[in-house]
């Protein structure tokens, strides 16, 4: 299971990287952590002409808080984000999801940007980004673009990144006071991809839900934002009946894929259970935070 022949470039600046992308376009694969890309190469399922290794571009790594947002450089290692107090304090949903990504050795190399650019709909970070309306900053020879999460995930392993664009940063909004989060997932084993996952964030104001964000992993070819369920929840007091109805609305129109790990029907059933559990936990955490 050896990698096929491939050229290799290791730019040290974003400008260099973008020039290379402009030159190679779809024939290039950007190599960050490699935890998703290298297996594809080893299985000879991907055969890019060139690997553009961006690990040497120092400016792409780092976590900073800016104006109510947390900006995470694309090559920030998952374990660094996991240990970041800024992330823990300001983006608790991201902090909840990060430890569920694979195993520690994967997070030693895997990057926040890489996972989001790979866009596996069963992965944890795409669901978090979608739930929180994260913003994706891409740069190309023609300049910089900011893509909201709703527009970033286009299809299975497909984003709206153009072939001459490099994802340089992802921005997550800081959680408001009164917010509680929950990341739930059902996986076959500890550390596996979710069969179904839920990223949930609720903000309580005087006991009622003032903001609700739910995104489901594994139910579609992109992370699925449960807008109908969110609309139901906003303005209401938390209750078991409310959460049951939210679970129903979140999943009734879903048409999940079927594979070895679960049928379409199974995924829908489990997603509903996760919504119920996630909402309960988010409320509990919101109360804890107050």
């Amino acid at each position, binding site marked *: 299971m050896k990698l096929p022949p491939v050229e*290799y470039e290791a730019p040290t600046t974003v400008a260099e990287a973008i020039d290379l992308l402009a030159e190679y376009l779809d024939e290039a694969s950007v190599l960050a952590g490699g935890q998703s890309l290298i297996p594809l190469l080893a299985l000879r399922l991907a055969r890019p002409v060139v690997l553009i290794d961006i690990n040497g571009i120092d400016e792409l790594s780092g976590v900073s808080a800016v104006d109510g947002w947390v900006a995470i450089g694309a090559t920030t290692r998952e374990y660094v984000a996991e240990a970041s107090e800024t992330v823990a304090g300001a983006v608790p949903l991201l902090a909840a999801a990060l430890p569920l990504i694979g195993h520690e050795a994967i997070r030693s190399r895997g990057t926040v940007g890489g996972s989001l650019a790979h866009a596996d709909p069963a992965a944890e970070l795409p669901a978090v980004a979608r739930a929180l309306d994260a913003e994706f900053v891409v740069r190309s020879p023609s300049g910089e673009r900011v893509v909201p999460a709703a527009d970033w995930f286009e299809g299975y392993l497909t984003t709206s990144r153009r072939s001459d664009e490099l994802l340089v940063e992802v921005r997550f909004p800081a959680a408001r006071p009164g917010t509680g989060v929950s990341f739930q997932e059902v996986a076959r084993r500890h550390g596996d991809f979710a069969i179904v996952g839920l990223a949930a964030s609720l903000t309580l104001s005087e006991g009622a839900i003032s903001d609700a964000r739910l995104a489901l992993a594994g139910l579609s070819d992109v992370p699925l934002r449960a807008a109908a369920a969110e609309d139901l929840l906003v303005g209401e007091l938390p209750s078991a009946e409310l959460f049951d109805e939210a679970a129903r609305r979140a999943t009734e129109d879903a048409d999940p894929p079927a594979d070895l790990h679960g049928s379409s029907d199974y995924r829908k059933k489990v997603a509903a259970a996760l919504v119920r559990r996630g909402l309960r936990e988010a409320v509990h955490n919101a109360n804890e935070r107050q």
Partner: protein
Amino acid sequence: MVDITLRVNGATCTGSLEARKTLADFLRDDLNLTGTHLGCEHGVCGACTVIVDGRAVRSCLMLAVQAAGREVTTIEGLAPDGGLGPLQQAMWDSHSFQCGFCTPGMVMQATAFLSDHPDAGEQQIREALSGNICRCTGYQSIVDGVLLAAERKQGSDHDGNRG
């Protein structure tokens, strides 16, 4: 071909290789450090685990060129001169292994984990090792080895502090 220089088990090494060669293959083929094993070559089984710049890493998911300038430790480098370090000794004492194929990856992963979590309990150890697959043991003896190593270290730290 790309030229690289890196440190492996405390020694400076160089190589001239194709960019597509994984760190695992570089260690095994170019440096003759065959202790690091290939169990799946797609990053799931953990048999290829080594330590790079202090972190456990799957060497089948790293290109050798990405290790340029880095500090790599393999199973051969854990203890001086073919002896046994404390974790290895504890695992010997605990009958941790059978066929031995998963062993280097397990030992490296456990080494990295224990250095960050010296007080870990059984459940944490199991979770930490859940990315390393063993087909022979059912894991209990491996977990016992790690627990024993942790216990001995705490004991000796305690003794050290009593001085």
